[in-house]
Each structure stands twice: as C-alpha cells, then as structure tokens.
C-alpha cells in the first residue's frame, strides 16, 4: 500500500472518529438531560409521600404510605437514593422509621451481603449505606472491612462505624487498629479520630484502654480524642503518657489533650516537660496548655520558654502569657525590650493582642 493511501485512510478514520465522538457526546448529553428531568419528576412524586409518612406515622394511620414506600421502584430514582440524602439530617424516631422502611425493603440485608462482594465498588457502597442507616447489626460487617485490601473501602468502613456510633463500634475500631491485621493494612488517624468523635462519650472506655495499646498510632489517637471529648477521668492516664511515652507523637497528643482539659493538676507535669522535652511541637503544645490552665506559678517557666531558640516555641510561650492578664502582659513588655531572647516573639504577640483587643500598641513597632 502506498504512503498516500495510508495517509488517506488515516485522515478518513480521523474525521469519522471526530464526527462520531462529537455526535455521541451530543446524544449522551441529551440523554442525560432527559434523565435528569425525569429524575426530578420522580423525586417530586416520591418526596411528598415520604414527608407525609414522616408527618403522620405517629398517628398510626400511615400504613398505606409505608406500603407505598416499601414497594416503590422508580426508573431513575431509588428510594435508597432519596433516603441516603435525608438520613444524615434526621434524628430520633423519624430516622428509625425510615431505617425501618429500608429494613422492610430488604435494603439492609442486601447491604450486609454486599460487604462480601468481590467488587470493591459494591463493598464500598454497601458499607456506606450501613453507616448512613446507622444500624448496629452492621457492626461486624463494617468491622470486617477494616482489613479490606482496598483503601477506599477501609476508610468507608471507618466512617460507617463512626456513624453507627456505639461502644462496640469504637471497640471494634480500636482493637482492629492495634491488631496484626491493622498493621498489615494501616488506616490513617484522621478518619479514625472523626469516627471516634462521632461515637462520643460511648467511646470513653475503649479509648482509655487504648492509652496502653502497643501501636504508637493507636495511643496517639486515644490521647487526642480523649482531650477533644473532654474525658476528665482520663487525666492521670494522659499525664502518664505525656511524661513517659517514648513516642513524640503520643506525648504531643497527650499534651494537646491536657491543654484541652485544662486541669490545674497538670501544671506541674507540663512545666517539668518544658525543662526536659526536646521536641519543638511538644514544647509549643505544652506552652499552649499552660496558657489555658493559667496557673501563676508557671509564669517563670513560660518566660524562660519565650527565649527558646526555636521561633515556634518562642511565639507559643509568649502567647501563653497573654491569658494571665496584666501580669503576663507586663512580663511580655519587659521581654519585648530585648533584641534577642524572645524579644521578637513578645513584640509579635503584643502587637497581635493590641489589634485583637483594639487597644493602642503597647510597644513601638
């Protein structure tokens, strides 16, 4: 075949593909718009039925509506799709009634089966639905997916356990993280902390036990979450972690938590920390924690920390002096006169404070 013939075929093929693709896109766009219109129409029919059901089920005369919802099958809309958007906004009995409809439609059982699917997308969607419904029978299925080979599925399982929100869910999550299986397929701390925060005070016992976990990540998560949840009985355990834990991230988490809890009994450990700790982040967190506790006996230690070689610590220590009021500000003004040893941090904090409180700058800038 000659070069000309090859070029001619290539050019024709090109043209055909360009025209074909353009037409296909137009057809798909038209189809999508038609479906979107129909979807809206179906939702417009389904939504009022659901709302009427939620408004009348307590009167006991909503059986017809319930049957209608249980048997509903749309062309472009599924009942599940509508409910998935609604469930996070509902609480209490209304939510339970909708979950009951899901259960009677067989959706929950299907989702539980779906968590064993060989397709990652199906496992993902199944566990998301169990989480959205918040059904406790889904805990073992969601917990089993914590070791899934697909990262997105593992993360969806963590979120689902957080939304199911029971002590069993918290225990399953923390135990998995500290297990060999958990080490094989690690789960990042952030989604875990959010799941535990959603579970709330129900997670207190498993979290307190997790302070002694073998895995650094689990101990770190436990310290941070106990602080955010405000679990005061955990103070002694947190102080021990802050003093003794070999991992800087655990010490940091415990220091953050003690700052959040702001118990005066922590002041001694925190000032001792300022003298011995080497990690800059932990030192800055210890200063911030002392700024929340506001124990006057800690001022000299904070003043000393204002002269720390690292700017993060210097600024954190200077900021911690502000909540002490006039005494702290006087100390900062003295330090601000220095060229070195924290003068820069004191000047910054004084300037920020004067702007925030709308007062005349206390030092010349």
């Amino acid at each position: 075949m000659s070069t000309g013939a090859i070029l001619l075929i290539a050019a024709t093929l090109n043209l055909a593909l360009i025209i074909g693709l353009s037409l296909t896109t137009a057809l798909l766009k038209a189809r999508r718009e038609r479906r979107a219109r129909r979807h809206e129409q179906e939702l417009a029919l389904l939504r009022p039925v659901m709302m009427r059901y939620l408004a009348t089920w307590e009167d006991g005369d909503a059986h017809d509506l319930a049957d209608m919802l249980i048997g509903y099958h749309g062309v472009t809309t599924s009942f599940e799709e509508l409910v998935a958007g609604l469930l996070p906004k509902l609480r209490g009995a209304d939510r339970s009634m909708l979950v009951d409809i899901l259960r009677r439609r067989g959706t929950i059982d299907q989702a539980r089966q779906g968590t064993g699917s060989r397709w990652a997308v199906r496992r993902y969607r199944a566990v998301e639905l169990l989480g959205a419904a918040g059904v406790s029978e889904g805990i073992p299925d969601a917990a089993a997916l914590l070791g899934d080979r697909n990262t997105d599925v593992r993360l969806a399982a963590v979120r689902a356990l957080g939304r199911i929100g029971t002590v069993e869910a918290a225990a399953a999550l923390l135990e998995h993280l500290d297990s060999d299986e958990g080490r094989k397929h690690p789960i990042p701390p952030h989604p875990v902390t959010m799941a535990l925060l959603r579970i709330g005070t129900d997670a207190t016992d498993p979290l307190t036990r997790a302070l002694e976990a073998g895995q650094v990540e689990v101990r770190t998560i436990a310290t941070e979450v106990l602080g955010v949840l405000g679990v005061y009985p955990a103070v002694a355990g947190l102080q021990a972690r802050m003093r003794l834990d070999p991992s800087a991230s655990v010490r940091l988490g415990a220091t953050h938590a003690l700052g959040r809890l702001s118990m005066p009994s922590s002041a001694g450990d925190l000032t001792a920390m300022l003298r011995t700790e080497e990690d800059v982040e932990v030192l800055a967190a210890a200063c911030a924690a002392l700024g929340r506790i506001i124990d006057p006996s800690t001022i000299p230690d904070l003043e000393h920390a204002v002269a720390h070689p690292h700017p993060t610590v210097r600024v954190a220590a200077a900021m911690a002096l502000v909540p002490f009021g006039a005494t702290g500000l006087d100390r900062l003004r003295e330090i601000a006169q220095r060229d070195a040893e924290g003068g820069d941090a004191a000047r910054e904090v004084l300037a920020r404070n004067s702007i925030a409180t709308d007062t005349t700058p206390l030092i010349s800038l």
Partner: protein
Amino acid sequence: MRDFLESAVIGFNSFVIIYFLALNSLYLLIVLIASRAQRRAQRMSSETALEDLFANPLTPGVSVLVPAYNEEPSIVSSVHSILDLRYPQLEVVIVDDGSTDGTFDVLQHEFELQPSTRVAAGVVETVGTVNSVHISRDGQIVVIRKENARRRGDALNVALEYSRYPLVCMIDADSVLEKDALMHVVRPFVDDPERVAATGGAIRPINGCPTERGMILEKRLPKAWAPRIQVVEYLRSFLLGRVGWSAFNGLMIISGAFGLFRRDLVQQIGGLTADSLAEDADLVNSLHHRLRREKQDYRIVFVPHPVCWTEVPENLKILGRQRRRWSHGLLEVLWRFRQMIANPRYGRMGMLVLPYYVVFELLSPVVEILGLICLPLGVAFGILNWKMAVLYAIVAIGYGILLSVVAIVVDDLSYKTYRRWKDLGILLVAAFLENFGFRQLHAFWRLRGLWSGIRGSNASWGEMPRVGFKETSGASG
C-alpha cells in the same frame, strides 16, 4: 543532489508525522487512563468523608500563600473567595511583592489591616527585604510588604516564612477557588498522611464567568476565541493530562495557581528556587528528587474535582509572553534536574516522565516549526506532491483535533462543568480552530522561550495585566 534533497524532505516529513502520531497517541493514552481513574474515583466518592473532614477539630490547618504583584483589580475578590472557602482552619498570607499599583491600599481598606510584627520561621532564605507586616483584626489575614525581587518564588518563600499551619496552599492572586476546593485537596493528606507530599487541583479559565465577591455565579465559556481555545488546552493538559500522570505518581507539575504542600517538606528542600521561572514545576521536581533519592514511599496527587478558576490572557501579546516564560521555565527545570533524566535511580520520574517532557514537550515546537517550514518548501520546489502535502497536514492536524475532542468528551461525561449546549458547541469549534493559526503561533512562542532559555536571557514574573473578574449581582442570559 535533487534525489538527496527529495529523500531528505520526504524523510523529515515522515519523521514529523511519526513524531506527532507518537505524541498524540501518548497523550490519548494518558487521557484514557485519566478517564478510567476519574470514573473509579466518582464511583467511590463520598460526601460524608468531606463532612467529616470539615467537622473534625483535628483537621490540619492550611496557610494559603498568595504572592501579589500589581493585582489591584482582582486581589480583594480573591481574598474574599479564600475566606469564604469551606474549611475549618485557615489563614491567608499575602505577599505584596513591591506592587506599584494600589494592591496594598485596597487590601488595607477592605480588611482594615493594622501594622504588626511577626516572627519569621528563619528556615528558608529569602531575597527581597521585608518592609512591613500587617494583619487583620481576627488575625486570619497577614499581608507582608516586601521589595520586589522579580521572582514569584521569592515572594512565596517569604509567605512560607510567615505562615503557621502544617499545610501550605500556594495560589495565584487572581485565582478563585470553588467552595470545597481546599477540603478536596486536603483529603489525600489526611487519608494517607505518611505518603502524600503534595496535591494539586484542576485549573480552568474564569474569563466569561459572572462572579460576585469572588464566587462564580455561573460557569460559562469566555466570549473571545483566544481564551476559548485556552479552555480546550487547559482541559487537555492541565486536567486530563495531569490526572493521567498522577495515576502512576508521575506528576511533574502542580500549577502555581493551586497547589497544596506539606510545609515541613518544602522547608526541608529550602523552599522554592527563587530565581526559577517555573517555580511550581521546580518545587515539585525538587520534592521528587529528594524523596526518590532518600528512597521514601511518597505520592504527589492530582485531584481533578476541586477547581481553581483563573484569569487567562485574552490578548495574544500577553499570551505569547506567558507561553515564552513557560517554555523557558520548562527548559530551566529540565536542565536543573538533568541528572534525573534516564537515571533508573529516580524510577518512573527518571525513566519515563522526564524523558517524555524532553522529547514531547520541550522539543515539540522545534519539530513543529521545522515541519511547517519543510512542507511548503517541499511543495514549492516540486519535491513533494501537493496532494501528499495536504494529506500530511490533514493527518497531523486531524489527530490533534481528535485528541482535543476526546478531552472535551471525557470532561463532559465526567465533570459536566459547562451545562449549556452552546458551550459544548463552542468547545468543539475551539478544538477545531486551535489547529489553524493558534497552534502554530503557540509553537513559535514556545520556540522563542526555548531560545531565550538557551541564551540564558532574563525574564521575570508578574507582568500580566489583570482586567479583574466580571463582578455582577446576578447571572444574566
């Protein structure tokens, strides 16, 4: 002699055809990989994950770094769009890099800035002297006024020095981010904190979109053809191309208009290269270079969903200047990291990505311009049959159009950004028109950029005049 010339011209034209077939086929492959990755990501997308990210008090804070040089028309809208972002903890660090217009005045007036002091981290070297620091009453906005060092990298380094949060987001002063944009780009960091070093978001031209207080009211195409063609370019290269490269951790560029980085890693590599013209690509390659050399398991991720809208040049003169700078910058970056090229120590970056950029990005204007010269010369001297020459041109151009059409199709199916039928039609026409004049002009600009890079001539950032966003109180017809 004539036989030799004839063989040479035909041989070169065949080479040009094979080169463009290979270039476009590779790009087509990347676009198809991108569409597959996107489909998968869409099927496993989760609103609850974003809600959790927003609600979690332990979500890492983000410092948004905004270098600004003569950005008076758009800076206030940009800062408002950043402050309106849905993100739990953020600060905006703006560096007024010696602007000669009213950039600082409009900022001071709008946000009631007060002079302050702030301790710099003292980790990264900077060039331009800092004159003053100003903060807003709530402390969320920090403006640093400095001497102009004629380098965007230096302005970003100053912002880095004064930033406080563990993640730093670098954006252009004329960028407008979508409401959830930060949450989308932060998510890879919290989902894989050990490995993710940087993330970048998609960039799209904002020209033509009506905005209000830095928020886009309706996504529309620009009115003029030059920016419309750039929309197609951005779709092909900045969206689908990057999704494709990111799928196998080979992202070489995160656009300076919207990128998120771990602050500690940027500090460890000494910040941005202040005298680089492509400081964004330079930064990403510095990270690749360091992390690969240290044999670390890391990821640099492109997140296609969050969109950063940015003003693109409407005027060919300014567009030409921008493209010359990009080409010059690419040469600088490839030269700086030349020891990585074809070096197995740097894995797929060394063996695949950088060689691709040398052969198919850096050298393509040379091949294209030589092809454009050779084809008509061959016809004029009777070496090439005109019918053959036309067929050569049709195949080369047709494949380019096909690639753009595929990108438009994938974008329409995946992202559905532009809803109007008219916009789809305009994009398809722009994909066609791009190949008649614009593409050749673009090759010429890139060749000039390459030449200025080879000569080592000076170029600087910050000379793109802004017209500002089309502020309106409501979208109209």
